């Protein structure tokens, strides 16, 4: 007797099938997509209940009351698959990191999928499997989600929105407004890897750059930093807009200036070369697995040592210091001993003509 699944007749054709409008209709096809793909890979006790939401235990950390931290992020990367990752693991790491840099321990994720009619189910399966691996490795389950399908031409294959929830112990306060003159700026590794990995795969730009995205979940590294008890003022992951935009944001929040040292900022030669070729500045190029740490000066050496002892922080460096500046400029001493501003980016970085 042939195997007939309960509720529908034929299993999803994950090899040749395509997303069609019925997958977002709310009907049987959508249930099938969720159960055969999303629940199969991302499944856990909460998601498996199949309710509209997940009922989660109250926020308690180590037996003590704690606060909840929640963050959400939309992922629209192109191409969907790139060296070192894909939109699936990126959507897990990006949101986990946003929760973790608040000082919180990420506990749960929710995922929203917007699928374009015609999108290959095989690719969708790869993406969901990648999400599942990332979520499993991070120890953070996807407990609820949503799926919509838009007509062909109205999407870009797949968009993923993830929301993360974490718990923050009472007494721990990190934030962009807590930075003070005299503090020290550290980064956990080389800048610009993710952005260059993405650009190297764009269809009209084929250069041979053996660079992989740095996409990674940072909460393990952050937990070790917090465990030192050091006076950390602010943690940030410099994603879109890169190091420069993130530091400008913090300078504005805290009403301070910063002085960075060009020679101290780690940038891989292949990333520097690709940026040179394209006329881009690596300080503005996106990262997905890097951390900015701003701390009291006295605590910088031990935080640097902690970063370097972790696999995700081996190339960590002290890159500058915070100073008083009513204009909130982020400045840079160049390798030449000159000085310049590292300004906000005006729109997207565009390749120069010559």
């Amino acid at each position, binding site marked *: 007797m042939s195997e007939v699944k309960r509720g529908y007749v034929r299993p999803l054709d994950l090899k040749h099938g395509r997303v069609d409008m019925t997958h977002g209709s709310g009907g049987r096809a959508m249930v099938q997509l969720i159960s055969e793909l999303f629940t199969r890979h991302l499944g856990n006790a909460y998601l498996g209940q199949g309710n509209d939401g997940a009922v989660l235990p109250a926020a308690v950390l180590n037996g003590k009351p704690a606060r909840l931290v929640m963050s959400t992020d939309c992922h629209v990367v192109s191409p969907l698959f790139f060296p070192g990752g894909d939109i699936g693991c990126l959507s897990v790491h990006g949101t986990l990191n946003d929760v973790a840099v608040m000082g919180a321990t990420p506990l749960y994720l929710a995922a929203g999928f917007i699928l374009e009619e015609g999108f290959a189910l095989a690719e969708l399966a790869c993406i969901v499997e990648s999400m599942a691996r990332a979520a499993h490795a991070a120890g953070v389950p996807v407990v609820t989600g949503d799926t919509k399908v838009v007509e062909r031409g109205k999407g870009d294959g797949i968009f993923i929105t993830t929301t993360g929830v974490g718990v923050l112990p009472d007494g721990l306060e990190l934030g962009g407004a807590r930075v003070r003159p005299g503090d020290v700026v550290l980064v956990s590794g080389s800048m610009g890897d993710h952005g260059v990995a993405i650009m190297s795969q764009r269809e009209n730009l084929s250069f041979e750059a053996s660079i992989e995205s740095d996409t990674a979940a940072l909460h393990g590294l952050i937990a070790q930093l917090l465990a030192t008890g050091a006076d950390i003022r602010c943690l940030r992951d410099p994603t879109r807009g890169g190091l420069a935009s993130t530091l400008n944001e913090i300078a504005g929040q805290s009403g301070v200036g910063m002085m960075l040292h060009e020679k101290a900022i780690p940038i891989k030669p292949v990333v520097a*070369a690709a940026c040179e070729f394209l006329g881009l500045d690596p300080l503005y190029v996106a990262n997905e697995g890097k951390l900015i740490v701003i701390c009291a000066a006295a605590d910088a050496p031990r935080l640097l040592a902690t970063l370097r002892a972790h696999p995700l922080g081996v190339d960590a460096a002290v890159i500058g210091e915070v100073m008083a500046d009513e204009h909130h400029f982020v400045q*840079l001493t160049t390798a*030449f*001993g*000159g000085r310049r501003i590292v300004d906000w980016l005006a729109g997207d970085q565009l390749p120069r*003509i010559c």
Partner: protein
Amino acid sequence: MKYIDEFRDGEVAKTLALKIARLAQPERSYSFMEFCGGHTHAISRYGLSDLLPPNVRMVHGPGCPVCVLPIGRIDMAIDLALKQGVILCTYGDTLRVPASEGLSLMKAKARGGDIRMVYSTLDALQIARDNPEREVVFFAIGFETTTPPTALAILQAHQEQLSNFSVLCCHVLTPAAISQILESPEVRQWGTVPIDGFIGPAHVSTVIGSRPYEFFAEEYRKPVVIAGFEPLDVMQAILMLVKQVNEGRAEVENEFARAVSRDGNQKAQDRVAEVFELRREFEWRGLAVVPYSALMIREKYGSFDAERRFKMDYQSVPDNKACECGAILRGVKRPQDCKIFGTVCTPENPVGSCMVSSEGACAAHYSYGRYKDMTP
């Protein structure tokens, strides 16, 4: 990075800076124009002016291809995309140049224009091959550096009889612009341009050679040093210019001997001459109409000329009256001397040409150097 790091050695820069400071005579001042935006960018990005003695001043010239593109030309490209329904291909930072009615190519794209950023003319040709039912126009801008690839694209399209490909040609010429700076009517209006010498763009000279600059050196008694775009190239060029001024020489010297010869790339020049001829006149943003300063497509390749194919006429659009770009491009004023600099005119909302690309004098000063205007 091989061939890059060698030219970014901070210690060598300090030695060069020391030599410049020793040679620069304290009783005189030196003003050198770096014609090309690539040099402006390098000077700002590496903070080179901090390494120069106060009496050596760099004046930023008009050599940014995006900055000197007049509004009317962008309007033509937008018109092609929005009204004629073509696929318009162009290089990256052209997308942000402000045009009429608050538009730019980027904003026109958001309004439905099929506008695509390409990295080379070959990409544009491929788009034409892939879309035989659509008209594909390459919006060609830039100085002598970007002209040969456009010529090759037209020759290739001609060979393939690619009937849906054409070029909106806005290529301009370096020597004509330098002449305009030195002897335009505006110079008389604004006063003598205080320029003691020029840094010539190496990439232009890899194509045209150093010979075209010999005229300036002789006729205007201005030394020219052709230099690469790495910070050490620029420092070395400044040193060579200071020496020439001190010795009363006005010669063309070649700092970029690693790639530039006196006669340039003959093959590239032949391709350009095959496809293009001089335009009688061309309007530059900030420099007004400059005679024989740009190229147009020859009659033989007229079917690839978008202006002819779509029967377009150029309409001049005046710049904002408060904008001082004309004086800034000639070195008569500095960006911070302009009333709208950093207030009405910013990189997010550029009003004048110099604020458009990061290579423009105003954008470079705004993005990299404005701390100097605010800190004691």
